[in-house]
């Protein structure tokens, strides 16, 4: 294979992984925009989503697409309950309280997953309609699993953009993200916006988890990938929806190329090295808006 093809191949796989990062980062960004909180348990939403889909497919015998929708939906409900029960009382508390709370939540959920009979600490496979098939273009090869990730991400992004643009609650969410006080004055129920934000973000996490499960398999520690999506969110500016996706893809491609051409080990920390450089050189990210500090 020629060098160019080799690079292109790595880039393709990087884009697919990057889409997952992007989806998880989108979950971070949505919550951050609305509530100024980062959900460090976003990775655990992936785990939950993947495990629910696994249960639906393996034990209940549901087809993949039904399981995908149902698991994403149930994760949405879970996010709603989580916001209502745990996080609502923390609105307005200092940053480290919320950071610590969501970290605690992550640890709790991860251990809970390991306790559920049938889930446990083992690695599970998930049956998908696109196993063992691949698309070939010249010398380039892309398996259907990766292609599905890219296509489904694109579909999801279109749905989400339409949601924010054309629905009433979507516009209310954008307004709240811009200025909470003004949103309240305009008659928007900010608490309800927070609930919906958590719902969507948890559902996104779950969706990403299900997409990822054919590649990494389903196990309790797949949530750590969520932490690698944080640099993606920072790179995108933490405030912008396209930024999160672009950031995710940049991180994914870099990791993939680093895995091929750089010494072992750099692949795992490439995301964080990019992160630190971004924070030093351009802390507002690629798509962020620089805000002036007011007294």
């Amino acid at each position, binding site marked *: 294979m020629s060098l160019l093809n080799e690079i292109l191949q790595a880039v393709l796989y990087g884009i697919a992984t990057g889409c997952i990062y992007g989806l998880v980062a989108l979950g971070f960004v949505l919550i*951050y925009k609305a509530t*100024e909180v*980062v959900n460090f348990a976003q990775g655990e939403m992936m785990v939950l989503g993947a495990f629910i889909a696994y249960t639906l497919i393996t034990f209940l015998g549901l087809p993949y697409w039904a399981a995908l929708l149902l698991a994403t939906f149930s994760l949405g409900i879970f996010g709603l309950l989580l916001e209502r029960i*745990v996080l609502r*009382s*923390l*609105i*307005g*508390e200092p*940053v*480290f*309280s919320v*950071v*610590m*709370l969501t*970290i*605690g*939540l*992550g*640890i*709790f*959920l*991860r*251990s*809970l*997953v*390991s*306790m559920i009979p049938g889930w446990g*600490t083992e690695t599970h496979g998930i049956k998908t309609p696109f196993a063992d098939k691949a698309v070939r273009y010249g010398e380039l090869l892309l398996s259907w699993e990766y292609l599905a990730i890219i296509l489904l991400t694109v579909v999801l992004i279109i749905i989400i953009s339409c949601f924010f643009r054309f629905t009433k609650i979507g516009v209310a969410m954008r307004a709240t993200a811009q*200025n*909470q*006080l003004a949103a309240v004055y305009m008659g928007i129920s900010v608490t309800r916006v927070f609930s919906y934000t958590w719902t969507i973000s948890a559902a996104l996490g779950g969706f990403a988890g299900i997409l990822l499960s054919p590649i990494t398999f389903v196990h309790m520690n797949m949530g750590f990938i969520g*932490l690698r999506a*944080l*640099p993606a969110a*920072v790179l995108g500016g*933490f405030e912008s929806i396209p930024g999160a996706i672009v950031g995710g893809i940049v991180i994914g491609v870099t990791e993939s190329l680093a895995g091929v051409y750089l*010494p*072992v*080990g750099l692949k*795992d*920390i490439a*995301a*964080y*090295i990019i*992160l*630190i450089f971004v*924070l*030093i050189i351009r*802390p*507002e990210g690629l798509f962020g808006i620089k*805000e002036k*500090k007011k*007294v």
Partner: protein
Amino acid sequence: MRFLMKRNYYEDIRLFKYRSTFFWYAGLLALCCFLPILVDDYVISQLTFICIYSIAGVGLMILTGYTGQISLGHSAFFAIGAYTSAIITIQGGHFMLALPAAGILSGLVGIVIGLPALRLSGLYLAIATMGFAFIVEEILLRWETVTRGSLGITLEILSISSFTFNTESRFYYLALIILILTIILARNILRSPTGRALIAIRDSEVASQAIGVSLPRYKTLAFAISAFFTGIGGCLYAHKVTFINPESFTIIVSIELLAIVIIGGLGSLHGAVYGAIFVIFLPQLIIMTKDYMPTFFREQTGLEPALYGLMIMLFILFEPMGIYGRWLKIKFYFEMFPLYKKDTFRRERKFYKAERR
């Protein structure tokens, strides 16, 4: 309730607020010294870990509790301290050289991390320091000529000249002495102009700049001091467990340290010690209560982390001021009896956009 009459400014920053406090601390010290006679070796070993984590906790407390900068990267400083000391002693270096070297090297790395951290605050700082922790962990794993990679370093039992720390109580005394020195040093830093500048930065960056506190200088300094203490803690940890590899210093350690300062109570050195006691004794407590649980839960390996995560959540939801805050509230209740008002400690909440960077 006692009212103090202060006749000059120095009375405001005395080490002991009341004369009676001094005697209480002396009593506590005496108790700590006699503990090895009273309890068995296992408990002493746990107490040693409490001392070690308290030292690291004091370090993070200076940064998070007093300067208001969150850090998820203190596992890295802990690791740097541990590895520095391990490598020096294994080359035949003296412990009295290795201990300060561990602290100083961590402190220097702290300065390096403190510089980019100047432009960040809150969440971004948490994420950046987390990234730093991952990078250091990977370096420890890959720089095999120095750190021996995942094989780790096995240390001999610590000895200073001909005196070996071969019993639990000997090492306990060593850790206790260093903890006391650490607390005295930290207390003195905090009442000096430096410490008061740090507290000013925590309370308002803009206001502290206006009265002439140099933000770059003091924030870097806070990182350096904090990393120094955490490095000392790491050094003791390495000699206590006598085997270290990169897996002992994952992000979990950072989370534990952060749990120590938040559960203990932000903004007090007492809090660091209370938090360390809590974090070390919680697993013990879970093991002890295991016999009373249904069989299903007893057999779960995930039980301990689950309860750990749950405790962190419950503390933040219901006692955000931590154990020390609860103690203050109880004390205040009795001092003010029967005039205690329920809302005395209620915190003000901000619903508008916070300062972002």
